[in-house]
């Protein structure tokens, strides 16, 4: 159905958007592509009085590189990342992840920052960017910026560490060495659907950093460093029973089916990363 009536505002810059957001006390929402918010608007589950379209804000559609990082503007679409329009902090991973998000018509409008801020536990970027050790750059109503490391960004389903007057302007991803390996596997009932389980694995022999991340847990992605270390040391995933035990003791409320799916997704991600080791 048609959404409930709303006003559409295009703020001039990020601080203005932040102030408008804070002033709305929940009745104002940011729209950064609207591919998750749109369905909620049409179902009238979300009935904001005003929407802030931030896709045209200066710099939000840019990709930048530094010696140590790749910085992707919050309003860069998944399709642009899929097509290799942004520099790669690790060969091929962002493109692979972007190409697996929903459907191409959705990827043409959905944005990386929008996806992060929506904070759906089954979404791809929250898990993939946690595995890459990324940080989220947020700007508040005064123009002050801070960088929030991914593990501290998503607090739970649809909840983030953003303050009421903050919007995300960019994502900073550390560059990995050419020797780095990655694997990303998600289990979905149908291509493009919300994932039932996501396994992400990144290992960089040069920096000696490795991460194993479990996504679609019902809340924020789960990092299990011991499993990552096992894979980095041995070149193969820990046994299914070991992985399941680790998930059972993670403190999260996960069903037996979910634990199995997550364990299999982890194994496949590690195997994909280290297939020829």
């Amino acid at each position: 159905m048609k959404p409930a009536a709303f006003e559409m505002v295009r703020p001039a810059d990020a601080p203005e958007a932040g102030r408008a957001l804070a002033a709305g006390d929940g009745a104002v929402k940011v729209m950064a592509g609207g591919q998750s918010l749109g369905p909620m608007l049409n179902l009238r589950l979300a009935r904001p009085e005003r929407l802030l379209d931030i896709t045209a804000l200066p710099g939000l559609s840019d990709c930048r590189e530094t010696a140590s990082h790749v910085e992707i503007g919050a309003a860069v679409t998944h399709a642009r990342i899929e097509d290799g329009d942004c520099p790669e902090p690790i060969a091929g991973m962002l493109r692979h992840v972007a190409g697996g998000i929903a459907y191409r018509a959705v990827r043409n409008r959905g944005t990386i920052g929008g996806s992060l801020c929506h904070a759906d536990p089954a979404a791809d970027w929250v898990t993939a960017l946690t595995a890459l050790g990324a940080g989220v750059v947020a700007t508040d109503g005064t123009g002050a910026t801070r960088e929030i490391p991914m593990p501290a960004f998503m607090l739970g389903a649809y909840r983030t560490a953003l303050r009421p007057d903050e919007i995300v302007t960019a994502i900073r991803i550390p560059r990995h060495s050419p020797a780095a390996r990655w694997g990303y596997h998600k289990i979905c009932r149908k291509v493009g659907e919300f994932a039932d389980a996501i396994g992400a694995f990144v290992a960089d022999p040069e920096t000696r950093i490795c991460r194993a991340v479990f996504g679609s847990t019902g809340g924020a992605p789960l990092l299990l460093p011991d499993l990552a270390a096992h894979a980095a040391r041995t070149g193969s995933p820990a046994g299914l029973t070991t992985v399941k035990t680790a998930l059972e003791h993670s403190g999260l409320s996960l069903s037996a089916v979910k634990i199995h799916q997550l364990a299999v997704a982890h194994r496949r991600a590690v195997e994909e990363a280290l297939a020829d080791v």
Partner: protein
Amino acid sequence: MSDTIRLTVNGEDCTATVPPRAQLAEVLRDHLDLTGTHLACEQGVCGACTVMMNGKPVRSCITYAHACDGAVIETIEGHRGDPVMDRLRDAFSRHHALQCGFCTPGMLATARDIVARFDDPDEATIRHELSGNLCRCTGYVGIVAAIRDVAGQRRTEGGRAERPAPAIPARSRSFTRFDPLPPEATPAPAAAAARVSDEGGATVVRRDFTLNHPPETVWALFRDPRSVAPCIPGATLESVDGDRFQGSVEIRFGPIRARFGGHGTFRNDDTTREGAISGQGDDKLGKSRVRGDLGYAIAPGTDAATSQVRVELRFGIEGMLAQFNRPELVAGFVDYILAQFAANCDAVLAGGAAAPARRLSVFAMLWAVLKARLKGR
């Protein structure tokens, strides 16, 4: 409230005066009489409404008017002078790639995009790319064959895709096993103490928590709906009459907001310090309904000054919100809400006031928890 937007549709300059909430599909169908664009799910899932915007396929159901100002749109009525689309139409016909035809306008838009992006798409690629366009007649066999046919014709003629994505670089060749550095300190995941299960179609959430007050004091709070309702984030108790009550609860969960009004009954057993609430209510604006039963029991804690509260909530949601009823999301949110509730109970029992509810965001399914609670007591 309405704005006039300009757009180029099928090669013609158009204007439409529409409110910001107008979907692109509505602009096309109701303002420009281009009814070939079909609306079905309106959630971006089925693909029937897919049209070309600035040369790329988009969902016209979740693309709103303001975003289309100045855009170039091609619908199924257009694509004039595009030989590739002519071939696709012809191939769809030859390969029986449609039966009822409802999905076809969106299917052709996606097909056009596949041919533009892939030089030589194999069946697996085409099926993967078509996953966002639902066809319930053909089984996709004819559609896949038609797209392969058109790509094949172009290949035979030495043509290439118009916008191929560069190949994804290969992974590094060598990998040296290594001893990782100690991991960065990361916040421990918020442990979910709630146990969530699906029992006979109802979602059941069980949770225990501790309050820093003796059982008789906690029970006195719980058994009186008027005293416990303010502890429930977003809840308002409107009236209590015998064992019946009326009330409402406002929930906020991400962008989702709902206000459920309803009624129910409650009963308390002062000897066992157990009680139960049954309630039902609806969110009229959002067209969702919920019914639930909440059982609670207060027992002594580890020492005389504390209490152990055990809660079992059983609920079902119907209507729009049910589409977001993903039980796995419940656990973390229940924990969050119950932590707020427990903190509010502690504050009220200590003679203070509950935190302002407007700061709290409450889970859709949870709302039932709250509601049940607020109602109940």
